[in-house]
């Protein structure tokens, strides 16, 4: 039997694209072409995977043909397939966005190579079925992100990059420690296999609660959950806009995905403790994010704190761990990846055009950029969750689930946070696009057609995603099922006598 290579394509295409780019030397134009083509190829393979999974259910590949649970398996269920597709779309538009914003110097020094390696790692983390393999892929995309955050070597990048690397190195070490504990308890590294073993185990689970804390420490640091988000606002402020688009849209979401996977598959027994802990931290994250988003006038900072709010909202859904909660969390996860990319791109355009990051020093831009202005408005509404834009459905399901589980405070906090989000982003819109005209002669004559193309395309993707919610519902139901009903995820394992 030959190995089914299809589930590996989203990992291999960017990896080989990066290696080919390395061999072509410092030629920005060649790199651009290769990066665009490979992102298109990833989109095609991801769509193919979504269709296949929708038709036949979970696809699994066993590397080297080692039967599970012994070998490394790459498992693509609906959740992974949809995340791969979203990642691919964001990659394509970010690459196009980078053409005019990242600068030739960075392009020469292998910017696209690192983007491709990072995407390879992110896709790997989404699609692997082996927990140690997930650690390896985490390191792959983190190492690429270390290069991306410091590439260019400005003072703030070096200073914040050092902190970012340090925090992530420490949490990665704890990841290895958590794996060591997990392996000594369960004797397996295949996530589905661990789930079946734990489900059939009658006995003392208290060490699993301890493990839940260690795993949460690791993934909360990567995802930016209270109280471990302290590095996020500073570090994400440093890199240039296209890198920030990738970080804000993808990296924290991988952490959330890992939390959802481990909490649905491993920590099934002592739910009162583990999921309650997750819920409390998620609510604290929402509150801290709201305070941050309200207290700054700097556009970059406002949307960086909006990342935290979104992380909190998704984790509220994950902590509920029922059908509506998981459906909402997953819907909101995909929505947030798309809309964060769109918003970061639009804000990036404003920063490149005006050279200012403070929204209060701008004004009246709607006269020269009417389309961008209204796109920003739509993106702001979508972020806050105004129907029929996609943020609404995710929040609807999450709030429904919190009320069904008698967590009224959590539901109300999620609802209030939408107002905060709306206020903080609309404030950028009002002061930058309306209001008194700024001195238009200060605007920089930057070439911006590709910047605008990418950002408007992302907004359109987001709106289309909202309008197609009804048609996509069965897919999301499938995706959420592998979380709230983890036995369905483990189905691909062969029956053990």
């Amino acid at each position: 039997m030959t190995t089914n290579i299809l589930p590996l394509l989203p990992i291999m295409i960017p990896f080989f694209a990066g290696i080919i780019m390395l061999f072509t030397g410092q030629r920005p134009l060649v790199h651009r072409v290769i990066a665009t083509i490979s992102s298109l190829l990833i989109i095609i393979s991801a769509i193919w995977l979504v269709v296949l999974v929708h038709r036949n259910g979970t696809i699994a590949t066993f590397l080297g043909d080692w039967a599970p649970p012994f070998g490394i398996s790459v498992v693509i269920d609906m959740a992974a397939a949809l995340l791969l597709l979203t990642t691919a779309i964001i990659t394509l538009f970010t690459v196009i966005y980078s053409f005019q914003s990242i600068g030739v110097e960075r392009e020469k020094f292998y910017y696209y190579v690192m983007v491709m390696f990072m995407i390879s790692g992110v896709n790997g983390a989404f699609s692997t079925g082996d927990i140690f393999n997930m650690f390896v892929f985490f390191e792959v995309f983190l190492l690429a992100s270390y290069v991306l955050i410091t590439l260019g070597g400005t003072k703030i990048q070096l200073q914040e990059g050092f902190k970012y690397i340090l925090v992530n190195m420490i949490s990665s070490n704890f990841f290895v420690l958590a794996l060591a504990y997990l392996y000594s308890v369960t004797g397996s590294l295949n996530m589905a296999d661990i789930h079946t073993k734990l489900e059939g185990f009658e006995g003392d689970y208290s060490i699993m609660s301890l493990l839940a804390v260690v795993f949460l420490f690791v993934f909360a640091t990567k995802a930016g959950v209270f109280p471990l988000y302290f590095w996020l606002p500073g570090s994400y402020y440093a890199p240039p806009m296209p890198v920030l688009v990738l970080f804000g849209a993808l990296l924290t979401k991988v952490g959330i995905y890992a939390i959802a996977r481990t909490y649905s598959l491993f920590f099934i027994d002592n739910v009162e403790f583990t999921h309650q802990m997750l819920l409390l931290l998620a609510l604290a994250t929402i509150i801290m994010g709201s305070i941050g988003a309200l207290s700054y006038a700097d556009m970059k900072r406002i949307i960086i704190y909006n990342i935290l709010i979104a992380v909190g909202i998704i984790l509220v859904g994950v902590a509920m761990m029922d059908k509506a909660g998981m459906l909402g969390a997953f819907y909101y996860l995909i929505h947030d990846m798309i809309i964060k990319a769109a918003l970061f791109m639009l804000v990036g355009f404003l920063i490149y055009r005006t050279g200012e990051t403070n929204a209060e020093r701008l004004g009246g831009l709607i006269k020269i950029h009417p389309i961008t202005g209204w796109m920003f408005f739509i993106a702001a509404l979508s972020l806050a969750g105004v129907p029929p834009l996609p943020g609404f459905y995710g929040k609807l399901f999450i709030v429904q689930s919190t009320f069904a589980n008698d967590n009224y405070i959590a539901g109300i906090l999620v609802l209030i946070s939408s107002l905060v989000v709306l206020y903080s982003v609309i404030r950028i819109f009002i002061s930058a696009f309306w209001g008194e005209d700024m001195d238009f002669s200060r605007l920089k004559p930057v070439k911006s057609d590709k910047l605008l193309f990418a950002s408007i395309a992302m907004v359109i993707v987001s709106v289309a995603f909202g309008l197609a919610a009804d048609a996509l519902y069965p897919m999301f139901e499938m995706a959420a099922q592998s979380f709230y009903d983890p036995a369905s995820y483990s189905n691909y394992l062969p029956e053990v006598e």
Partner: protein
Amino acid sequence: MELITIILSGILIGSAVYMMLSKSVLRIIIGTALLSHGVHLMLLTMGQLKRGNIPVLDEEVSNYSDPLPQALILTAIVIAFALTAYILVLALRSYRELGTDDVEQMKGVPHDD
């Protein structure tokens, strides 16, 4: 035997925390290296420490070593090595650019001149 290595890895992690809490960049990096050593030792201990058994699961062999933790450690060591190399280069570069190796002074938004 396991107990000794667990205590040893505890000492390593403890000294790593001490080193990481200092202000000098270089000491912090040595701290992360120590932390990774402690963690890898812990990972090795988790597969039980035995001597002289072949790592093969066979029907005749009843007593065998677990090869998996050693394979995992190999991967983790390589990753930790790469990260340490990268962060050392970065520390050198940021010392030249920022003119300090004191983390207390690495805050705020510095401006390029």
